[in-house]
């Protein structure tokens, strides 16, 4: 292979973290996209602001808040460890959580746009054909917002690959466990004579990004054709 072992380690770790992050945030993102688009309820604006918070907060602050909540002394962290045996602090699962939180608003935003474009008339038609609320959502709304789900997933995946501040603050920079590509790049820059390694890692990131963009464009086209647009 033309990647060094530490480089491929950072790459596969990044991919693993990003994948987990996307899987973790997809279901709640669909739920929040729906909540923020369809029902009118008191406190919707507040919820909207809350979802978008990671976009405006410095990532370090998000990492710090996660540390407070999910760290080894945080209430939720203790409960997860004792009740479910899930250790988040200083682990790749923690890195996945940090990236999930950071990329959540991007994902919700893409899904919302797509949900707003779903013709309510089709849901009404499904009603007259005997479909109840959940049935309608699964059989009509969800397939029709598929372009948004895909776009949101891919955007979030790309953002997760590049997340730095929240990850390093929450789960630190442990080789093989939490040292993803950007963290490895940062580490290389900090070490003497690491310029060459940093350049290679930067090129790798670039490659990943461009590849992701092309893939998402191709997928979007396929889905659009499938939906007849």
């Amino acid at each position: 292979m033309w990647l060094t072992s530490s480089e491929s380690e950072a790459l596969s770790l990044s991919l693993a973290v990003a994948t987990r992050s996307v899987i973790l945030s997809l279901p709640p993102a669909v739920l929040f996209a729906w909540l923020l688009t369809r029902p009118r309820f008191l406190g919707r604006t507040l919820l909207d602001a809350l979802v978008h918070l990671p976009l405006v907060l410095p990532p370090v602050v998000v990492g710090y808040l996660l540390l407070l909540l999910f760290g080894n002394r945080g209430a939720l962290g203790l409960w997860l460890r004792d009740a479910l045996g899930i250790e988040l602090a200083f682990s790749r699962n923690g890195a996945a959580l940090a990236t999930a939180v950071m990329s959540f608003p991007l994902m919700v935003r893409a899904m919302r746009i797509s949900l707003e474009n779903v013709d309510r008339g089709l849901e009404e038609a499904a009603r007259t054909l005997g479909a109840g609320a959940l049935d309608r959502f699964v059989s009509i709304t969800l397939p029709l917002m598929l372009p948004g789900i895909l776009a949101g997933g891919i955007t979030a995946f790309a953002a997760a690959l590049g997340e730095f501040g929240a990850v390093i603050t929450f789960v630190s920079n442990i080789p093989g466990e939490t040292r993803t590509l950007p963290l490895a790049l940062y580490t290389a820059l900090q070490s003497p004579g690491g310029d060459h390694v940093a350049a290679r890692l930067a090129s790798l990131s670039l490659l990943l990004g461009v590849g992701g963009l092309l893939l998402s464009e191709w997928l979007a086209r396929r889905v659009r054709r499938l939906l007849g647009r």
Partner: protein
Amino acid sequence: MLTVAATKRRGSFALEVAFELPTPGVVALFGRSGCGKSTLVNIIAGLLPPDAGRVALDDVVWVDTGQRLHMPAERRGVGYVFQDARLFPHLSVMGNLRYARKRAADQVFVDLDAVVDLLDLRSLLSRRTHRLSGGERQRVAIGRALLTQPRLLLLDEPLAALDAGRRDEVLPYLEMLRDHLALPMVYVTHRFDEVLRLATHLVLMQDGAVLAQGSIGAMSLDPRLRSIIGRDEVGAIIDGRVLGMDSTSGLTRVQVGRGELNVQYSGLAAGTALRVQLLARDIIVSTRPPQHLSVRNSLEGLVTHVQDDGDSDLVSIDIGNRLIMSRITKAATRELELRPGMRVWALVKSVSLRGYSWSAPRLLEPRT
């Protein structure tokens, strides 16, 4: 029996209606755009809750605001054909049909094969919905609605988005549904020619209220219809019956009331139900048996009343359990001294056939 009583406010628009309709049959909700027809249909379907009111089909109550009862749309068993078809774009034609069949009530009165044959959908089944023409889309939408095994079929301007050619392509299917399925239908339209072809019953709407209602024959003579369709379109609509073909002239003899009309049309078996429209402006009144005239069709009857209609008069004539109407000048009314009870002959200049049976939907000019 479909019972509807409902009020609904939406901004400055207010709907307030109450009526009862016989079932089965085709009820046309007729009126200009914006008179509240679609709002009313959505209330019947359950897509829109009324502010107050009661909706029931036979003995099943769908809405009763007094008892806080509101059956959700998905449980009403109402088939709904929308103006814009609303086929699901992520499913094929077959997928759309199956979607309805899968969720239908157990009691099956039309199965998938029957619907496919009835509406000639066989060649479309594997197609994506965006590859269908407007007329094909509506046929699929009608089939999908039928597969829910509905107790009532609502059609909200199903032909309004189609051009003339496509409309003529879909209309025969609607006539066939009416004649072959014992399914009550509510048909919303702002086009009177569709009412003529399809309806058995007419509800006339204006500004959110029911202006008048009744059987199509009775409503065709109602003066309130005039304000909507225009004075030139006024005329009796009569469901007649084919008596047979006249061998010497080659014309088809149609019984209307006690009289008989000869129309230029062939291929109709004796006994076929046939709807004819006799426009008031096409009928001449004579107080003597007509002779030496080119007009071949005349119907004998008694004047029932003469009503003032602006610059002319409308004379109603009983031709034997059926009324027809003639538009004549006020001078003619005076000179002929027309009054109720008088024997007259109505000379019919032209008859429009509004085919009642499945095989005869055509407009034609009879011999005069």
